[in-house]
């Protein structure tokens, strides 16, 4: 029972973390290795405004999302667009960017990690498991965002255009969709999602200059195992990974927690490269 509750909560958070990464990967076909840095930026922005300057929490969250969005847009304009079409160059330059952002965080905030106060304080015992309102809020928040995103992609004009670009960029361009604009919007949304996830993730764990690696790995795992272009797939896989981690900790050995995720990535990539739910193979 504890495993189910903790697994559900953790998986919701993982799904949110992975979503922004999935979007970019599906629409732009590039791996944004600086994605983890969005989470870090979101967390630190929220920390600066809400915890240090005393801005209300919701406003802090919005500010974090805004900064994330701006960073996403800038990244698209300054890095991705000039390197158009060269996936390797985008991957490498985003990796360099992540290291640069890490250095900037160390420079501004120092090496030592910081703890975010819970967005909603308090704790409740459910069937012997301690559940913080904070994580509960993060999980509910991530479900709301996920459903909203699903609706956006399926029902709105912009969302459908995104889907079109994701499936066939040239075809979409011929039918009057501007792929550049769609990409721009996607990078912005991805940045905002990443930064929001970062606030939840950091309030659950901690803020530190190296915090970008762990969520990046989670996002990578979800995208690889889920396959590109599938929001539902990403959601299911986030749950597989979340439950696998919680089970590993509770029943096997806590120190092997991450090992199973890595093994899953490797196995799936070798056996079914298009991912469990993906519709195509990436070239």
């Amino acid at each position, binding site marked *: 029972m504890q495993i189910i509750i903790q697994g559900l909560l953790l998986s919701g958070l993982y799904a949110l973390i992975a979503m922004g990464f999935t979007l970019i990967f599906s629409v732009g076909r590039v791996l944004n290795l600086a994605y983890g840095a969005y989470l870090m930026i979101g967390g630190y922005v929220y920390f600066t405004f809400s915890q240090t300057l005393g801005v209300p929490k919701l406003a802090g969250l919005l500010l974090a999302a805004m900064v994330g969005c701006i960073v996403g847009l800038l990244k698209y304009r300054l890095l991705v667009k000039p390197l158009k079409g060269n*996936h*390797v*160059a985008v991957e490498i*330059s985003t990796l360099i960017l*992540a*290291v640069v952002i890490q250095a900037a965080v160390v420079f501004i905030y120092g090496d030592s990690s910081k703890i975010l106060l819970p967005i909603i304080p308090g704790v409740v015992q459910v069937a012997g498991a301690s559940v913080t309102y904070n994580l509960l809020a993060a999980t509910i928040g991530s479900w709301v965002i996920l459903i909203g995103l699903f609706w956006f992609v399926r029902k709105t004009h912009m969302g459908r255009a995104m889907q079109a670009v994701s499936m066939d960029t040239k075809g979409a361009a011929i039918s009057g969709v501007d792929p550049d604009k769609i990409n721009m919007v996607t990078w912005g949304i991805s940045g905002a999602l990443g930064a929001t996830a970062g606030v939840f993730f950091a309030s659950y764990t901690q803020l530190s200059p190296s915090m970008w690696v762990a969520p990046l*790995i989670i996002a990578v795992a979800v995208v690889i195992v889920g396959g590109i272009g599938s929001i539902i797939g990403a959601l299911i896989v986030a749950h597989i990974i979340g439950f696998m981690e919680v089970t590993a900790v509770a029943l096997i050995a806590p*120190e092997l927690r991450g090992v199973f995720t890595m093994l899953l990535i490797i196995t799936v*990539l070798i056996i079914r490269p298009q991912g469990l739910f993906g519709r195509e193979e*990436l070239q």
Partner: protein
Amino acid sequence: MNLRWYHFALWALFILVMALIPELVSKGTLRIIIFANFLAIFAISWDVLSGRTGYISFGHPFLIGIGAYTSAILTKRFDVPIEYAIPAAVLMTMVGGIIVFLPALRIKGSYFALVTLAFMELIYQLVQVVRPDLTGGTRGMSGIETLTRGAVNGYYLSASLMVVVALSMWLLMRTQLGTALSAIGMNEESVRGSGLSTTRLKLFAFLTSAFVAGLGGAFYVHYLGSIAPRALFDINFLFTIIVAALIGGASTIIGPVIGAFFLTFLLEYLRPYLPGAERYFIYGMIALVLYMYEPKGLIQLFSNAWNSLFSRRESAGNQNSDQAGKQSDAL
């Protein structure tokens, strides 16, 4: 092979300069060059695999780490003499190379990069958990036997190793084999279409890369005298290797060497002015801007400068500048 006189001349000049360096610079600088030499070896190893075939490896520290850890464990825990430990480490790394090769049978592009990243993370976690009595766990190991003492000896060893690796890889890449590997990077289908076994070619590239990585890793650990998982299986280490290869100029041999020297000296020369964290920020920014400006690397910049210099001097001397272009391309 298509060797020309200026190839010999340039290599001779390169070796001569490397041999004379200890007479010209201070010991502190020699120490910096030693790190640059090792980084150059790692970057060459990365380049042989990723620069040529286009299979981008984000897990190179995985291979280097196998070499380093194998040799460290053998000498420190089992008292194996270094002269046996290093070949054993290289063999182990080649086994690791085969492991990395397996996914390359089915996937490529970004997916391949990610699976190698997963390999690196996996071994990072396993090294700390499995048999910490052998690996030293999180703290790693210290007091590993070193091959040399003193900056000058360390320099000669690392420089000879680097020159031998660079020269042999350069010769190898000038054979038809090297051409075929580059062709895979451009269009794997057409290579297969022309009747060559891409699988065998790729396996060869992976094994060669692993061989160099293992060799470099083993010598590196016996230079450092210590090893820690956090220093090896680390995104920052990976970053330095890849950026060295790319900033210098991928798919050339001298490019990664130039890149390695550039990065190492950049970081060290910033030290007296910016002792703290801002050093890494500036360093990363310079790398990013340089890479964005010229993804083909410093070697391309040099070659452009060379060409424009010649064409300015005599506009009719096209032959000359062509030859100069070839010259730098060839290296």
